[in-house]
C-alpha cells in the first residue's frame, strides 16, 4: 500500500518543533510498508515477509492495532504495559482456533467493528474501568488472531509466518503507543483525536463498504 506524498508534506508543514517532528516521524515510519524486493524470498524469508505484511497491508487490521496502542496510551498506568504484553497471547488463542478450524462467526464483521469501536474510544479519549477496556480489546484480539491463524497452515514456513505477523502487530502497538503519548502534549492532542476519527471511519468503511 502506498501513502500519498501530500500526507508527508502535511506533516512537515504543521508548525511543530524540531524535536516533536522527530517524535512523530519515528512511529510514523513504522507504518510505512517497505516495498524493496531485491531478493526473492523462499522458505523462512517468504514465510516471514508474508506474515509480516499480512497485518500491515490489511488496513482493517492495521488501524485496529494502532487503536489498541493509542488507547493504551490514553488509559495510561498499567494499560501501557498490559495491552502490548497480553494482546499477542490473546490474539494467538484466536489464531489457534483458526488453525484448528474452529468456526468463529462474523470474523470480518468483528474486525471491521473493532476499528469503529476502538477508533471512537480513542477519539473521545474514553477512560472506562480498565477491566472493561481489557475485555473489549481481548475480544477483538481473538477475532484478529482467528483471521491470521486460518492462513498460517498454508504458509511456506508457518513458524516464520507466525513470527512475522506477531512482530508486525507488536510494532503497530508500539507505534500507536508512541503516537498516543502526544495526547499529553498541549498543542498536539488533536493528532490523537484525528487518529481516532480516521480509525473509526476506516472501520465504518469496512463494515458497510
Amino acid at each position, binding site marked *: 500500500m502506498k501513502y500519498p506524498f501530500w500526507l508527508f508534506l502535511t506533516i512537515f508543514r504543521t508548525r511543530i518543533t524540531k524535536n516533536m517532528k522527530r517524535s512523530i516521524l519515528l512511529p510514523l515510519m513504522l507504518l510505512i510498508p517497505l516495498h524493496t524486493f531485491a531478493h526473492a524470498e523462499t522458505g*523462512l524469508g517468504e514465510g516471514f515477509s508474508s506474515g509480516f505484511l499480512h497485518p500491515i497491508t490489511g488496513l482493517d487490521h492495521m488501524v485496529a492495532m494502532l487503536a489498541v496502542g493509542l488507547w493504551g496510551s490514553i488509559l495510561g498506568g498499567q494499560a501501557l*504495559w498490559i495491552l*502490548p*504484553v*497480553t*494482546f*499477542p*497471547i490473546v*490474539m*494467538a*488463542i484466536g*489464531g*489457534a*482456533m483458526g*488453525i*484448528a*478450524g474452529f468456526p468463529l462467526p462474523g470474523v470480518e464483521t468483528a474486525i471491521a467493528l473493532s476499528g469503529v469501536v476502538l477508533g471512537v474510544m480513542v477519539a473521545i479519549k474514553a477512560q472506562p474501568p480498565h477491566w472493561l477496556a481489557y475485555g473489549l480489546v481481548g475480544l477483538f484480539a481473538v477475532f484478529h488472531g482467528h483471521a491470521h*491463524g486460518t492462513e*498460517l*497452515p498454508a504458509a511456506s514456513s*508457518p*513458524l*516464520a509466518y*507466525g*513470527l512475522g505477523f*506477531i*512482530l508486525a502487530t*507488536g510494532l503497530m502497538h508500539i507505534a500507536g503507543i508512541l503516537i498516543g503519548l502526544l495526547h499529553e502534549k498541549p498543542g498536539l492532542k488533536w493528532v490523537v483525536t484525528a487518529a481516532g476519527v480516521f480509525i473509526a471511519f476506516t472501520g465504518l468503511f469496512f463494515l458497510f463498504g
Partner: protein
Amino acid sequence: MRTVALHIVNTELGHFYAGIFHVLLSPDHLLPLAALGIIMGFQEKTTARHMLLTAVIAGLAGGLYGRQLDNQAWLAYINFSSFVVLGALAAYGKTIKPPIALSLSALFAGSQSMLHMAGLPSDLSWEIFLSGVLLGLASVAAVISAIALSLPSKWIRLALRIYGSWVAALGLLMMALTGK
C-alpha cells in the same frame, strides 16, 4: 602420514561449528532460548548463575539421551510448549523461586539438547556436535541475561517482557499447528 588440514572446518571441527550454528540459526531453538536468558536476567545474580550452570549440565544429559531417539513428532510438541512456558514467564517479568527457576532451566536445556541430538546423521561426530550445541546454548543464555541484568531501564524491561509475550503467542500457534 596425515596431511595437515589448513581449513579445519572441512574436518572434525566443522561439526563443532555445526552444533553452535544449529542453535544460533534455528529460530525454533533460538527464540525460547532467548526467553530463558530474559528470565535469568530478571532473577537474582546468584540464581542466574546457577541457572546457567544447570542448563549446561542438563543439556549434556539431555543430549546423551537424545542420541538414542529418532526425529519424532512429540519432540516438536515439547519444543513449542517450551515457547509457551518460557515466553509467558518472560512476559510475567518478575523473579521466581530459585528451585522453580533451576528446574525450568534444567527441563528446557535438557529437552532442547534432546531435540538437537535426535535423528543426528551417523556421519556427524556427536561428541563434537554436542559440545558446539552446549556452547551455543550457554553463550546465548549468558549474553541475553547479561543484557537484561545490566539495563535496568523500565522501557528495556518492558521491551523484554513484550518479547516474551511474542514467544508465548508463537508457541500457542505452533502447538495448534503441530497438533492439527
